[in-house]
């Protein structure tokens, strides 16, 4: 006998608003369906009404974890449209912030994976160490989340000697800790037993469903925009594309730990070889009519922006494809024939960022299945009405 269970948009196991509808047979998931749109913000339409500079800060707000990835992707596209080339020092600082962001995002993910697997000490350790890199980002940009370091033609803040020394010191600590996590994550028997074989995604399926980032690299596809289509300062750096061939959550963990280690290497190189000179060039207000496709390897996978200009100070069209959207089709494949208890782990393993993938409030009547979009005012009226009917403490009829 088959049952349908809805998980989300509000559910203790998934921290972001997405609705997964599972068809289960006993404990085994036979089919899964996704419903998006709970967090849609109409950002692509809004971008058409804002100027080139305003849009930097708009794209920054697409995501709270990989905010730098969206601005960099947008900014380097607009720089091509405006025909300006940022100075080398600006590009190095931009890339450095990108790598530090990858470090904080992957450490965050390791913690979430540990938590979903029931290994909470791992979660606390990684999140404690994540503070080191968060402090570095705050020192460089002035902010912990939305760094706002990018501008058209370069970056907004420079690095001094003292900051460089602090970054190098921080990287030493992080590197030492990550080597320890690499050992724990791949050898600790109970942790490995929980992750191995869960959420299987074959190489053929990963390619057919166009998965991106660590999800596809863990299925043995060596694809990384930083290597295939180098942008910013990646042409100068040397690193290896991390892959795994186990095609499961364990593989995705291994890939992310390997990427952490290569990010330390890249960051150290960038800081030690920081070229002298300006950090930004002046950008014009308008861009000639043209179009550009910009790509960026975000911590979650490939980020794509298509930007079209019409000669004015506003874009004609800005299309954003965040990596999480590309991984949804693959997630459904991973969930099939898995167990209910594995849902949070499998879903967390793509490192989902729902706010990235969606750019209205919807209520589902639990009894009739009817769905309805409501405004905040209506919701308040409903709450007030319900509150009036509730029996207060004094006149309540207690069941016992």
């Amino acid at each position, binding site marked *: 006998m088959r049952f349908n269970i809805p998980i989300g948009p509000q559910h203790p196991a998934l921290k972001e608003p997405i609705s997964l509808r599972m068809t289960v047979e006993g404990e085994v998931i036979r089919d899964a369906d996704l419903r*998006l*749109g709970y967090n*849609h913000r*109409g950002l*692509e*339409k809004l971008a058409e009404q804002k100027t080139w500079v305003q849009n930097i800060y708009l794209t920054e707000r697409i995501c709270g974890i990989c905010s730098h990835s969206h601005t960099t992707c947008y900014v380097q596209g607009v720089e*091509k449209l405006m025909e300006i080339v940022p100075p080398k020092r600006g590009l190095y600082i931009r890339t450095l912030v990108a790598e530090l962001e990858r470090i904080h995002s992957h450490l965050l993910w390791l913690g979430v994976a540990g938590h979903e697997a029931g290994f909470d000490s791992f979660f606390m350790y990684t999140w404690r160490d994540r503070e080191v890199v968060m402090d570095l980002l705050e020192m460089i940009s002035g902010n912990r989340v939305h760094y706002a370091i990018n501008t058209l033609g370069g970056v907004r803040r420079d690095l001094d000697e003292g900051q460089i020394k602090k970054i190098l010191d921080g990287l030493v600590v992080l590197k030492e800790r990550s080597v320890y996590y690499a050992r724990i994550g791949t050898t600790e028997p109970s942790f490995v037993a929980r992750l191995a074989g869960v959420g299987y995604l074959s190489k053929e399926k990963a*390619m*057919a*469903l*166009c*998965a991106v980032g660590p999800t596809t690299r863990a299925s043995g596809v060596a*694809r990384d925009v930083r290597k*295939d*289509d180098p942008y910013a300062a990646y042409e100068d750096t040397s690193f290896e594309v991390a892959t795994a061939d186990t095609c499961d959550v364990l593989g995705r963990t291994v890939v992310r730990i390997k990427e952490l280690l290569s990010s330390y290497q890249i960051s150290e190189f960038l800081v030690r070889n920081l070229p002298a000179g300006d950090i930004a060039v002046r950008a014009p207000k308008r861009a000639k009519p*043209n*179009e*550009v*496709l910009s*790509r960026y390897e975000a911590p979650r996978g*490939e980020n*794509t922006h*298509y930007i*079209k200009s019409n000669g004015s100070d506003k874009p*004609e*069209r800005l*299309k954003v*494809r965040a990596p999480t*959207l*590309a991984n*949804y*089709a693959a997630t459904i494949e991973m969930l099939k024939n898995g167990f209910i208890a594995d849902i949070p782990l499998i879903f967390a393993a793509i490192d989902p960022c729902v706010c990235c993938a*969606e750019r*209205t409030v*919807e209520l589902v009547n639990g009894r009739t299945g009817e*769905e*309805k*979009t409501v*405004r*905040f*005012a209506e919701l*308040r*009226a409903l709450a*007030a009405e319900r509150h009036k009917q509730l029996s207060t403490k004094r006149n309540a009829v207690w069941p016992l």
Partner: protein
Amino acid sequence: MTDQELVDKLKSLLGEKIVEISNPSLRRVFFTVAPGNLTASAAVLSKDLGIWYIATISGVDVGDGYELLYHFGPDTGSLTMRTKIPKENPHIESLCPSFPGAILYERELQDMFGIAVDHIPDPRPLIVPDDWPAGNFPLRKDWTFERPEEIIPGGKK
């Protein structure tokens, strides 16, 4: 494969299906096909060129029609296939037989532009709510958003 090799290969494989082809910058190739040749061209890309990755589909309202840009990802960078369809009764054939990963982007296209995708395996709305008023397609240039007047019950006048 360099950009020039890719351009030459496309020209020899697709022949006169290509209306226009350009290579505006390093690792970026754009080419235009007629809407009728879209699926045939996509099949060539997937079978003969071994391209398996589609990054996304961008729709653009260009005034006298809709321009659709299919961004593929060969190993060498990015390849974009462009086509243009008229505004009256806009519809396009699905690319899912060649690129199963295109499904989410085609559903997004239907929601945002109202372009009917023929033979799509799953035509349900993806982003817009189920009770979204029919005929509202937000990314069309003639669609503007009007914020409904908020009424606070028993509150401010």
